[in-house]
């Protein structure tokens, strides 16, 4: 049995899984950004992702040049971030996190509805101009598109980490994340910080939306990728960007391996829940995730 084990195939599955895990991480990072600064699990991240991708595709289809469409979509995402801060977050300041979570649930309904009401419900193809020819590395076939996505994700993580560590506004993000009251007391402008962080989450949503959109086509089901990102978050800890990456890799790899090697025993199609089971099993050992701060109690 062991002798028959096809290592090359195993590695191919593993690498494919790791790379698709990067795609999950991309979505998860958007959640982490908001959770870090406002302690909110932003369920609307998937809706933002859908909105960004749909807006971009529709602009391009109407003849707007690629770069201009990118800038315009980003501007719209910033505007949405500011609007959310004004209308939803500000009136709910200092409310329990679970109330804010439910508000983002409502928000996701509004954004999904609006996106499709404005741009229609048909499926759009999205071509980012990256050829998806498998690359052969040491006898293992790897999708070129996946590598591109991984590079983009790595770049974004690097950028965000530098931003959080070395800029003044990054520092104030961390201050707000630590203690909202204290941050207000020393004169940090909470509205500005929240608007910025939601805009940043909008940017992450745009990038993730484009990559996922190129993969799946831009359509409603794009907003369901949040459901893929949630176990990643649980595994990595809600407030750690590093956790989102590692969690994504772990989930992606174990999901693919499970689907290929043990999926048949369950009759297939186990990817809808397998990630959750992995995350849960892990949580029973470490209740605040891999890299999460040990303060889940406060919730």
């Amino acid at each position, binding site marked *: 049995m062991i002798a028959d084990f096809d290592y090359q195939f195993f590695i191919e599955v593993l690498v494919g899984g790791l790379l698709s895990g990067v795609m999950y991480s991309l979505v998860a990072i958007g959640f982490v950004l908001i959770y870090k600064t406002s302690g909110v*699990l932003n369920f609307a991240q998937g809706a933002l992702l859908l909105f960004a991708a749909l807006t971009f595709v529709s602009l391009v289809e109407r003849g707007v040049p690629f770069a201009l469409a990118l800038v315009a979509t980003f501007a719209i995402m910033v505007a949405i971030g500011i609007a959310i801060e004004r*209308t*939803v977050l500000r*009136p*709910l300041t200092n*409310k*329990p*996190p*679970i*109330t804010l*979570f*439910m*508000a983002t*649930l*409502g*928000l*996701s*309904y*509004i*954004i*999904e*509805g*609006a996106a*499709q*009401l404005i741009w229609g*419900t048909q499926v759009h193809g999205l071509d980012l101009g990256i050829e998806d020819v498998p690359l052969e590395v040491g006898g293992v076939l790897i999708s070129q598109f996946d590598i591109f996505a991984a590079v983009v994700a790595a770049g974004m993580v690097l950028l965000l980490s530098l931003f959080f560590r070395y800029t003044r506004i990054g520092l104030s993000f961390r201050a707000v994340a630590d203690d909202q009251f204290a941050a207000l007391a020393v004169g940090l402008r909470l509205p500005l910080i929240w608007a910025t962080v939601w805009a940043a989450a909008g940017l992450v949503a745009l990038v993730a939306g484009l990559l996922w959109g190129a993969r799946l086509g831009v359509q409603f089901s794009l907003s369901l990728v949040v*459901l893929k990102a*949630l*176990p990643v*978050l*649980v595994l990595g800890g*809600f407030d750690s960007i590093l956790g989102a990456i590692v969690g994504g890799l772990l989930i992606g790899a174990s999901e693919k391996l499970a689907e290929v090697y043990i999926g048949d025993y*369950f*009759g*297939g*199609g*186990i990817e*809808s*829940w397998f990630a*959750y*089971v992995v*995350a*849960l099993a892990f*949580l*029973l050992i470490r*209740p*605040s*995730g891999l890299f999460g701060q040990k303060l*889940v*109690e406060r*919730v």
Partner: protein
Amino acid sequence: MTAITSNFSAAPVLPKWMASVLLLAFAYGVVPLIGSSYLFEAILLPFLALGLAGVGLNILTGYAGQVSLGSAAFMAAGAFAAYNLNLRVEGLPLIGSIFLAGIVAAAIGIVFGLPSLRLKGFYLAVSTLAAQFFVQWALTKFSWFSNESASGVIDAPRLSIGGLALDGAVGRYLFALTIVSILTFLAYRLVSSQTGRNFIAIRDNETAARIIGIPVLKTKLLAFAISSFIIGVAGVIWAFAYLRTVEPAGFDLDRSFQILFIIIIGGLASIRGAFFGAALIVVFPLGLSRLGGFLLGDVFDSGVLDMSQRIVLGALIILFLILEPDGLVALWDRIRRRLLFAWQST
């Protein structure tokens, strides 16, 4: 957690139970005589099923403070368990299979409630999604659950209790009303009992609850079990009395959110609130489609309707969270007090 106090202020004029008795008398004595079949099929039956599901979730989320995003899974578990019990167990009366279906849902609830012993808040909320996806997958994947029918569709059995056939719209309404009334009464008794107080204590401060001697782990699992039992029976009503033909896809994540919305809009930690919320959730799409058709005519097709429903529903959630965090129940009580005050001062 949310600081919601139970409403202890008694109604000033009538004893508290009088209102319920009058309402029940009206529901049993008057509604069946004057209601049209549209009223039963499109409004009252989904209202009763969703209201009961809301009661179940409110016990878990509103009282015990454990947020669950997997309610639809327990509805599905109840519906499919009742179907299979009814089909496979000879001589089991309908009521028996409904009760046992509730027990099955409760058992599944305990299993998926186990993470609550170590997880809190969002981590727990996300882990309840596991129930949502796993149950839906199992019901679709293994056709044994649906007696080998295509894509897991099940047809409800004939409804009859003690030889009394209840297949018409009115019969199914009375069937649902009876079950819902009994369970709601029991839930009401539960939340004002010691167990209910324990739930609230755990919600408000778990450490304090543990210190005053409440068995936290046991109580949490009990909350999961009772909540899942009620939601499971609500699922049976949904499948047997309301839709008559259901498939696992009908119990998707959107349904779970719908039930969560019901208790947010109606009022967390309020048994009445679940029904207020359910009434709004059931009537509002019907109203919106009428209104949209009336104002916009042909432009308002089903796609537009669907999207605008989502938008308005989302906006309603946010509005309630900001303006009336205690839900429709608080709004209702305030209006009633004002009216009473105005009436007494004249």
